[in-house]
C-alpha cells in the first residue's frame, strides 16, 4: 500500500470573495496523527472540511486545486461516498437526539439504506463502541437515548459512529474544546490507540494536546500553510517566525 494517503495540490478555498486557503500543498502519511494548528480564522476548519467536501455545502463556498485520496481526485468522486470513507467528528458532540445509542452507532448504515442483519449490526455496534472506549460504560444502556450521556461520552459516541463506517481517515475539528480535562485525556488516549488502523487529522487550539498526541503538525497562518513538519521539530525548532511567535504564546 502506498504510504501517502492524502495529498493536496495547490488547494485554494473561498467563501464568496474571501480567500480562506491559499495554495496549500501537503502530503499526509498513513497511520499518523496530524495536528492542524494556527490562530482563529486561519483556515484550519475550512481545510479539514474540504477534505471530506463539507466545505462546499456552505453557500457561496468554492474551491480550486485538487485533493487526492489514495491517488484518486476527491473532486471527481461522489461526495456522499467520499464522506463514508472519511469520518468526521465535530467541535460540539452531535449525536442524533431522536435515536438510541445503538441506533446512533449504526446510523451511517441505516440512514444510507444499507440492509444489515441483526447479528452484523450487533457486531458493528460492539466493535465500534469498544474501539471508541465507550463499550464498558454503555453496554447496559444501549437502547437508551444518546443524549443522556455526559459530554465526553457523547463525543466518544460520535467517534464510534464515525468508526462504524470503517473510514480510512478520521477528521476531528477541535473535538475536545467543549470537554473537561478528564474527558479530554480519555479522548486523547483513544486517538493514540486508533492510530494503528486509521489516519487521524485533528484541528486543535491546545498546544499541549498537539504535542502529546500528534506525529506531524501543520501550522496555518492567514490561509497559508506556513510550516509543516514533525511535531517534535515544530515545537523545538520552528523555522517560521509566525510559528515561533504562536508557539511561544506571543499571539493567537
Amino acid at each position, binding site marked *: 500500500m502506498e504510504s501517502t494517503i492524502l495529498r493536496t495540490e495547490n488547494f485554494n478555498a473561498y467563501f*464568496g470573495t474571501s480567500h480562506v486557503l491559499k495554495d496549500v500543498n501537503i502530503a499526509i502519511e498513513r497511520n499518523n496523527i496530524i495536528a492542524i494548528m494556527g490562530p482563529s480564522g486561519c483556515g484550519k476548519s475550512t481545510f479539514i472540511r474540504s477534505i471530506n467536501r463539507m466545505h462546499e455545502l456552505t*453557500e457561496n463556498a468554492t474551491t480550486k486545486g485538487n485533493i487526492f485520496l489514495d491517488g484518486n481526485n476527491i473532486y471527481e468522486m461522489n461526495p456522499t461516498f467520499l464522506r463514508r470513507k472519511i469520518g468526521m467528528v465535530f467541535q460540539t458532540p452531535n449525536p442524533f437526539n431522536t435515536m438510541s445509542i445503538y441506533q446512533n452507532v449504526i446510523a451511517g448504515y441505516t440512514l444510507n439504506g444499507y440492509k444489515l442483519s441483526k447479528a452484523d449490526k450487533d457486531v458493528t455496534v460492539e466493535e465500534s463502541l469498544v474501539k471508541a472506549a465507550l463499550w464498558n460504560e454503555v453496554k447496559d444502556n444501549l437502547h437508551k437515548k444518546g443524549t443522556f450521556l455526559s459530554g465526553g461520552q457523547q463525543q466518544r459516541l460520535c467517534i464510534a459512529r464515525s468508526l462504524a463506517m470503517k473510514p480510512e481517515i478520521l477528521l476531528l475539528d477541535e473535538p475536545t474544546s467543549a470537554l473537561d480535562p478528564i474527558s479530554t485525556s480519555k479522548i486523547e488516549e483513544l486517538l493514540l490507540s486508533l492510530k494503528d488502523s486509521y489516519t487521524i487529522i485533528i484541528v486543535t487550539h491546545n498546544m499541549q494536546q498537539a504535542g502529546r498526541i500528534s506525529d506531524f503538525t501543520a501550522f496555518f497562518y492567514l490561509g497559508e500553510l506556513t510550516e509543516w513538519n514533525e511535531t517534535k521539530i515544530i515545537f523545538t525548532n520552528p523555522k517560521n517566525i509566525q510559528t515561533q511567535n504562536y508557539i511561544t504564546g506571543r499571539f493567537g
Partner: protein
Amino acid sequence: MKDPLRFRETRNTAFRIIVIFFTLVSIIPLIAVLVYIFRQGISVINWHFLTSLPKPVGEIGGGILNAIIGSTIIIVLATLIAVPLGVTAGIYFSENSRNKGNRSARSGVNIVSYFRELRKSWVYRAAHLGVDVLQGVPSIVIGILIYLWLVKPFGRFSALSGSVALAFMMLPSIIKSTEETLKLVPHAVKEAALALGVPYYKTILRVIIPAGMSGILNGILLGIARVSGETAPLLFTAFGNPFFSFSIFKPIASLPLIIFNYAISPYEDWHKLAWGASFILVSTVLILNILTKLVLKKWKVQY
C-alpha cells in the same frame, strides 16, 4: 432627596395585581362561552342525538350524525391535502432562511455577496409573503375562490371542494410551525448526518423531520382545530346535506353548517339542536387542543 426604593414592594404588588386582573378579564369571555354552551347543549345530548339524522320541521327529535360524519370526511380530506403541501413548504423555508447555521460567522460577509443572496432568494421572500397574506385572507374569500375554481366548473357542490377550501385555511399554520420547529433543529445534527455520507434528501427526511416531529404534529393539530369550526368557506362549497352522504363528490353536511342552518331557523327545537351541535364542536376543538399539548410534551426532543 427622595429614596427611589421607597414603596418598591407596594408598587411591585400593585403591578402584579393589575397583570393578574387583566389576564382574568381577558379569559372571562372564553369561560362564559364554554359555560353557556355547556349549559345549553348538554341537555340535548343523548344517544339519539348522536346517532340519527335531522328530522323535517314539526317532527320531534332528530340528530346530527350526518354532520359528524360529514365534518370528519371534510377535515380528514383537508388534512391529507394540506399536510404534504404545508410540510414541504415548511422544509423549504427552514432550509433557506438566511440566518441559519454558522455561515455569517464563517464567511466574511461583504455587501456584494449580501446582494447576491438577496437576489437569489426572491422565491423564498415571495413565498413567505404569500403565506403571511394567506393567513390573513378572510375565510369567506377563500370560499368564494374555491366556488369559482371547483364548484362552478363541475356544476355541483361537493365535499372535496369544501376540503380544498379548509386545506387552504390550514396551510399557514402547518407551514409556520414546520418552519419554526425545523429551524430549531441544530445545524450540527444536520452536519453529523451529511458527514456520514447521508445524501441531503435523506438527511432531511430521516434526521431533520423526526427531530422536529412534535412541532409539526402540533401545527397540524392546531390547523385542524382552527378549521373545524369554519363555516364561511363551506357555505358555497360543501353546501350541506340533510341526508347521509359518504361521497366526496356530492354535497355533504358538516357541524358548522348545521349549526348555522338551525340557528337562523325560526323554530325553538331547532335552536336547541344548534346548541347541541355547538357543544359537540367546541368539545372536539377543546380535546384537539389538549391533545396538542400532550403531543408536544411526549414527543419533544431534547437538545
